């Protein structure tokens, strides 16, 4: 009996060691592919950066486009964005090649690339979605905040936060859907959250605008023909009209 246990153990250890021995070269191939392509990406991106700087790419882009890519990611110049995109494209390519190499080097029954590659593609898509969603959320939140402040809306920050979270929730739902995580639960939760935020914003803006509407109505009543304020009245609205900024 003891001999049988010993045999079972040695066979299982042999199987594990054999699998590990065949797995390690495949893993090494994966890492090597990623490393080489990353190095190539660094080289190409540095070369691109130098070339684009020498031809003044940023100036040309900002001159030719009123709403350029730098409007969305202001702290990054178009040159930096192009260089980084190329770098990350190389890294992703390295991952694909690495997984294929892993698949070829690893003698498993089910090819891993058939499962991993589509999921990796989805993951890359999800990461791009997440980055784009975050950038758009920040851009829209600031646009709404500044626009609302310049329109003298007291609840400007609240409005901006609402817009930001609307976009973020939408992004999160899209990312999860893209990764096929959660299924119906995500859709349901997204519907509830999105609807909740819209309802909250509508209520807040509606309630907050009561004063504006009543002031507007009062102003219309005040502007009846017999009560038009004279220019001599320093408190009259006409004082603001005579102000010329240009």
């Amino acid at each position, binding site marked *: 009996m003891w001999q049988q246990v010993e045999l079972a153990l040695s066979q299982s250890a042999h199987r594990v060691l054999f699998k590990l021995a065949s797995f390690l070269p495949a893993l090494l191939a994966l890492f090597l592919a990623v490393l080489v392509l990353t190095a190539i990406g660094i080289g190409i991106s540095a070369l691109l950066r130098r070339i684009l700087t020498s031809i003044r790419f940023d100036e040309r882009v900002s001159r030719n486009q009123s709403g350029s890519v730098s*409007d969305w990611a202001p702290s990054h110049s178009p040159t930096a964005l192009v260089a980084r995109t190329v770098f990350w494209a190389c890294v992703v390519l390295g991952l694909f090649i690495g997984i294929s190499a892993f698949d070829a080097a690893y003698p498993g029954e089910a090819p891993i690339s058939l499962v991993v590659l589509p999921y990796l593609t989805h993951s890359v898509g999800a990461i791009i979605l997440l980055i784009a969603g975050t950038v758009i959320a920040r851009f829209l939140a600031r646009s709404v905040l500044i626009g609302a402040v310049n329109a003298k809306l007291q609840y400007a920050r609240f409005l901006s936060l609402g817009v930001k979270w609307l976009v973020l929730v939408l992004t999160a739902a899209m990312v999860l859907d893209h990764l096929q995580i959660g299924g119906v639960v995500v859709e349901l939760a997204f519907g509830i959250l999105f609807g909740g935020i819209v309802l909250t914003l509508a209520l807040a803006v509606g309630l907050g605008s009561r004063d504006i509407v009543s002031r507007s109505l009062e102003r219309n009543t005040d502007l009846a023909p017999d009560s038009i304020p004279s220019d001599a009245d320093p408190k009259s609205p006409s004082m603001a009209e005579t102000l010329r900024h*240009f």
Partner: protein
Amino acid sequence: MASIQTNTDITSATAASTGGPLVSLAPLSPEALEATLANLALAFADQAVLVATPEAAPPDIAGSSIRLLPYTPTTVSSSPWVLTAADYLNALRLVQENQSSACLLLGAESQTLQPEVVRALATAATTSDLTVARYNLGPREGLVNSAILYPVTRALFAARPRFPLAIDLGLSRRMVERLAAEAQKINAGGQSDALIWPVAVAASANFTITEVDAGTRILPQPVASDLNSLLARIAGSLFSDVDARATFWQRARTSQAARPITQTNQPMESPSDVSSMLDAFQIAYTNLHEIWSLVLPPNSLLGLKRLAAMPSASFRMPDSLWARIVYDFILAYRLRTINRGHLLGALTPLYLAWAASHLLLISSGTPPEKHIEDLAAVFEADKPYLVSRWRWPDRFNP
């Protein structure tokens, strides 16, 4: 008519004269065109003058010294209240076709210019590369010019014209060529409405600049009344020009003789109602602090905090604070710290705070011109800060 030579670094003479003066008019209504031509006839009673007008059917001017030249503009500006790239391109075409040595560009509402002003502009244009009109505006007018355009242009480009974006200009032939070349660069990107800054162009080319007192004139107002978009357009264009000419203004010296204050504009008859502007600033202070903190150093933020706590009656924005704010916004524009549209939007409430402070100050008896000259002097004094941060933006800045 008084004229001031504002730039004495003359290195070369104006282009040789090959013909008489050419006056280029902005599109005008028939009545306005008639009045303008009558003024031009008075201004050039003893001299033949060529008047280019985009009008199709000019009125009868028989018997005067004016020769009308109707023309079809190659590019049309949709902002007639200000001179744009399209105007300079049209001016170059006219100057080249008529072999003129100098050109007068008269903006919209030019019928309100006095004949002696037009004459003075034309006379100065024969001896100077750029002649800029200086208007006598009311204390509540031209506030963007007083707050940003004039102080920044004076401090950075060492040029004194009070209205860097004047719509009545006298230009030598080489100045027209220079401005058209700038316009051509911009026009290639399909932006015929883009602004060109003639004073900055002339200063960086070391051309002569003269200022002519134009007295009172009705300045055309923009059709769009939205201050945010207009301020973003004007300030954005200026900041972009500052960015493009950084190599020049970092070397330009600002030590020029102080301009004598000629208090000709009307004093404030009544205190201004600035509550709306102060409200805008207070709302912005509570909401935009996060965005301002990306652009402004802690010292300026502290100044704004103090400002927000001030009662309306004694609301005063120190000139040094305003100068720092404008310089930091120029830097943020260059560095793209935040989106440029957002940046210029965040400047609007700060500008309104300055305008409120200025109006309150002048209603307390301070002459408007004195305050504006003081402000410009502060901008000049603080220029090393901008130069330093321009060169080393990451250096510690309290």
